[in-house]
């Protein structure tokens, strides 16, 4: 018999509806599996009692004919979301002990749609990182391992706990957030599917801020259809977030037909890179070919400012972060340093922030402080904002000719935890994901195959703003054609 935890969201919903098992059964099985795979360190906050309580309520809702879109589905919630009554620290020491007195809009929507918070997932501190190596709760292990060595590999970042949990079958769905690739790159590294919707599609209310003009909530699952259900559950306008867009949410699942006939798929020539693993390029061409076989047309396009995207990002994101993270001063919440007698207010700020922030966060606060400082603002920040406009214009032009853009998600498969990298080399992980983030466009990653080391690789699809439904449909078509059905630990 299939384990309950192996079911897709879609299959689990059918099982629940047909009374083959209850939401409480599913939650209990899921919690058991999480306990069994504790060594992955995918979860950072235990919400099991709450999950069982939610599941019991969910069974009642279903019995009363009031089932939501994802009624009874266990979902891992990234620790970046404020959850009322549960520790929410963004995996930073500086928020130690912080228990929100309010609920984020995304988790409020998730619960209303029937989602069960099965646990809170580990992540890079304040979502800054590409390997989940910067968490105050320790590293997360990728459930996949290479054929030729048994090194511990990263699950990607920053939503590494969410991606590892989905890949290891520890829950059906997971929430993530994506600022420069924090959903798509982990999805690629762990052989699962993840979507970052259009900027403004999901509310940022109660989502701990990193870079406000880039941060966007999204979801992980093991298929496009599952992502469609989960995204529909959390998306929507929220007057508490002035950048959320007042536009009805499409019924994504109904838009998934698998038909991409006549669609135009753009292949940006600037994404060709000699730093890319050979197999990534092979799968990219293969994916394009699949689209052609499905009746779509592939067209070479140009996004001329692509190579400037990462430098733009590493000015804008730290600038916004340095400003957003100024709130952590030891006064209102979280950590406050033990102060020597006679310590001043400034001492309190400095000691608290030095103890509370990790090195990557400190680095970014300092970069941000510098690029915003008098005399350097124009040369760095203002310039970056202008180049950002050019990058967005590149996409605008491209989308006047094509329906989607197809690119690899990351230049390589998952790297090892002990691979030492300088910051800039680490940043290059996001070279393919950052451009869509800067332009605010919806983008997703889906698994397309394994490399020679049996490690999963992902492809990215990018769509025009608010075309999540069409994007999910294109991903579904490719997913069906490719038939990726590998599980970690089962590849020979």
């Amino acid at each position, binding site marked *: 018999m299939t384990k309950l935890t192996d079911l897709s969201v879609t299959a689990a919903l059918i099982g629940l509806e047909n009374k083959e098992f209850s939401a409480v059964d599913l939650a209990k099985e899921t919690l058991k599996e999480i306990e069994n795979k504790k060594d992955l360190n995918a979860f950072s906050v235990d919400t099991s009692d709450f999950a069982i309580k939610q599941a019991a309520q969910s069974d009642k809702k279903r019995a009363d004919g009031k089932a939501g879109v994802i009624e009874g589905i266990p979902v891992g919630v990234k620790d970046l979301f404020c959850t009322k009554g549960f520790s929410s620290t963004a995996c930073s020491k500086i928020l130690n002990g912080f228990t929100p007195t309010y609920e984020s809009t995304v988790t409020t929507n998730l619960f209303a749609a029937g989602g069960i918070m099965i646990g809170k997932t580990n992540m890079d501190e304040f979502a800054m990182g590409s390997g989940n190596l910067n968490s105050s709760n320790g590293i997360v292990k990728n459930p996949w391992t290479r054929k030729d060595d048994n090194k511990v590999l990263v699950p990607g970042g920053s939503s590494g706990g969410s991606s590892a949990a989905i890949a290891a079958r520890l829950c059906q769905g997971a929430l993530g957030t994506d600022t420069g690739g924090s959903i798509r790159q982990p999805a690629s590294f762990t052989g699962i599917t993840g979507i970052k919707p259009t*900027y403004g599609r999901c509310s940022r209310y109660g989502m701990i801020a990193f870079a406000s003009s880039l941060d966007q909530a999204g979801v992980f699952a093991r298929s496009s259809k599952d992502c469609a259900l989960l995204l529909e559950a959390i998306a929507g306008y929220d007057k508490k977030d002035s950048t959320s867009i007042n536009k009805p949410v499409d019924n994504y699942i109904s838009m998934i037909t698998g038909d991409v006939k006549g669609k135009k798929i753009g292949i940006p020539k600037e994404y060709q890179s000699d730093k890319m693993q050979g197999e990534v390029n092979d799968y990219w061409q293969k994916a394009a070919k699949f689209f052609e076989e499905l009746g779509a047309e592939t067209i070479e396009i140009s996004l001329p400012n692509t190579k400037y995207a990462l430098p733009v990002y590493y000015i804008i994101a730290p600038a916004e972060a340095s400003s957003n993270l100024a709130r952590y001063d030891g006064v209102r919440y979280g950590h406050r340093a033990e102060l020597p007698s006679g310590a001043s207010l400034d001492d309190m700020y400095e000691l608290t922030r030095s103890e509370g922030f990790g090195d990557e966060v400190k680095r970014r606060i300092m970069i941000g402080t510098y690029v915003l400082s008098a005399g350097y603002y124009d040369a760095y920040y203002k310039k970056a904002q202008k180049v950002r406009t050019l990058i967005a214009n590149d996409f605008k032009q491209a989308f006047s000719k094509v329906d989607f853009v197809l690119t690899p998600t990351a230049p390589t498969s998952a790297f090892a935890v002990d691979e030492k990298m300088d910051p*800039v080399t680490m940043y290059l992980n996001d070279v393919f994901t950052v451009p869509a983030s800067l332009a605010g466009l919806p983008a997703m990653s889906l698994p397309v195959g394994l490399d020679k080391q049996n490690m999963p690789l992902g492809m990215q699809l990018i769509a025009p703003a608010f075309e999540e439904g069409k994007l999910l449909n294109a991903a579904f078509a490719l997913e069906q054609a490719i038939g990726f059905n590998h599980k970690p630990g089962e590849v020979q």
Partner: protein
Amino acid sequence: MSLTKEQVKKIAKLGRIRLKAEQEDEFTGEINQILDWVTMLQEVNTDGVEQMTSVVNVSLPMREDKITDGDIQEDVLANAPDAKFGCYVVPKVVE
């Protein structure tokens, strides 16, 4: 153009971060590496290009100037490291 260790210390101070002495060289090196790298933006011609100020090109919504919450003093102070008499407590700032 490279930042000196003194400049990096000043930036840290502005960001209210106290670097450990043994970390100063490392941070200086890494920050300079990042700044050198982002300097490539200077080669882009941005004459006449507007700065991006809104990602999805919408104007900010207006709302009525009305208090919509309040009476949540306990909630606001619930997470304070130190609070007394309905206020946050901080080290003495006035002599």
